[in-house]
């Protein structure tokens, strides 16, 4: 059973949120129920694939061991090597799953493994930072396997999540959250099952098969819009369901096609992913390079940081040429944008004019769509 894809899933989902709503209205804690329901949901989701279920169980046990282990060892050994080893172990299942696909032909993993891995690495890095001092098994399990966001995110952060579990909402606060959640679910359903479906049925699905320049442009816009409505729709539903469980999962999209430039775009598109890569890859790489003075120029550090971070982001989607190219494409765009904004006198003179903002938004929209064309693999068929 694939989450959010069948009416059967929505039927079970509707049944499962009713006790959560009751608990919320009675001002009782929802997390114990939430954990039980998450595990039951997982059993349902993976009910017809024993292979996936076993992999998920193994994954859970490995990650629990790595997280607990690192948390216990960290106070005694402050070495970087220990952190790298732990992170390596935590991403090993993901790498194994992606690369087995290349050699064995079929994917050996489970739905959501790419997203769950982020949560573990975040915890490991924050244990190293000293921000996380302990790993409670129940909270860990709930955070990792929280069912609304298990298939494709949004990627939450553990401390924020646990704070939500521990905060006691009054009835009126919960009702407000419930209302917001229901609204987000409805909006998400509209985006994914109405807008997304219409775009697919009448536009994307009808683009001619042979690749010409005109067909490619047609496909590019259709695919970009379809991707947005499908993914933003899913995210909205997932976030809305989280709200019902009184977890304020962060938003994933904020009018991304109205971004005024590529930097702004990454503050609006798939935000939980973008911010994760910013906080755990980009910032740390640049910070280390500045402190250790690897490069003479701080901008060099940040530019290499952009390419590295975005390249990794592309690679995370899958080990395909077009995914990596997609990442590098955005890395280069970010570098070019920064150079332009710093060095162009023309930009500095005109940047606050509405004409510039309009033109910049239009150009950004097209650059972004071209990026999605690369991402779709259309150019590599």
């Amino acid at each position, binding site marked *: 059973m694939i989450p959010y894809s069948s009416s059967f899933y929505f039927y079970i989902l509707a049944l499962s949120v009713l006790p959560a709503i009751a608990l919320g209205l009675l001002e009782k804690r929802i997390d114990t129920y939430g954990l039980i329901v998450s595990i039951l949901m997982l059993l349902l989701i993976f009910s017809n694939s024993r292979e996936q279920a076993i992999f998920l169980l193994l994954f859970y046990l490995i990650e629990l061991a790595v997280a607990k282990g690192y948390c216990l060892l960290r106070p005694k050994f402050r070495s970087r090597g220990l952190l790298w080893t732990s992170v390596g172990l935590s991403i090993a299942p993901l790498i194994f799953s992606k690369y087995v696909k290349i050699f064995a032909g079929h994917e050996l993993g489970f739905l959501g493994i790419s997203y769950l891995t982020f949560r573990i690495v*975040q915890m490991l*890095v*924050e244990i190293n*930072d*000293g*921000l996380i001092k302990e790993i409670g098994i129940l909270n860990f399990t709930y955070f990792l396997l929280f069912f609304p966001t298990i298939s494709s995110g949004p990627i939450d*952060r553990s401390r924020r999540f646990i704070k939500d579990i521990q905060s006691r909402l009054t009835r009126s606060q919960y009702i407000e959250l419930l209302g917001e959640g229901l609204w987000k679910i409805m909006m998400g359903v509209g985006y994914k099952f109405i807008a997304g479906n219409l775009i697919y049925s009448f536009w994307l699905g009808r683009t001619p098969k042979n690749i010409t320049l005109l067909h490619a442009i047609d496909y590019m816009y259709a695919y970009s819009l379809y991707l947005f409505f499908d993914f933003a729709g899913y995210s909205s539903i997932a976030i809305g369901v989280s709200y019902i469980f009184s977890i304020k999962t962060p938003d994933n999209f904020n009018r991304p096609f109205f971004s005024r430039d590529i*930097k702004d775009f990454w503050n609006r598109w798939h935000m939980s992913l973008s911010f994760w890569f*910013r*906080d*755990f890859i*980009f*910032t*740390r790489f*640049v*910070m280390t390079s*500045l*402190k250790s003075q690897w490069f003479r120029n*701080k*901008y060099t550090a*940040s530019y290499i940081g952009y390419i590295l971070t975005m390249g990794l982001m592309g690679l995370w989607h899958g080990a395909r040429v077009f995914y990596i190219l997609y990442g590098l494409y955005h890395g280069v765009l970010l570098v070019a944008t920064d150079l332009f904004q710093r060095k162009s006198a023309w930009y500095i003179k005109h940047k606050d004019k509405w004409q510039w903002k309009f033109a910049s938004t239009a150009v950004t929209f097209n650059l972004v769509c071209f990026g999605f064309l690369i991402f779709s693999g259309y150019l590599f068929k």
Partner: protein
Amino acid sequence: MQEKIVEILNKICGTDETKNHPDLNLFESGLMDSLGFIEFLVAVEKEFGINISPTEVAREDIDTVNKIVLFIRKKLDSE
């Protein structure tokens, strides 16, 4: 301490606007971007000897001079 922080910010943002506007939102006004933020963390560590990790505090809790001063003061007190 506020003076030291303003001095650091001036160097990073390339302007001394923050001196007279301790409640100006550094990110929204475009004075500070991701690179500036990183430079700031590095400078604070050097100047005050305290280590702030990138995800320790949400951006909205340190986006003005006043909030930064409050945060660093709290951090110094707890060490």
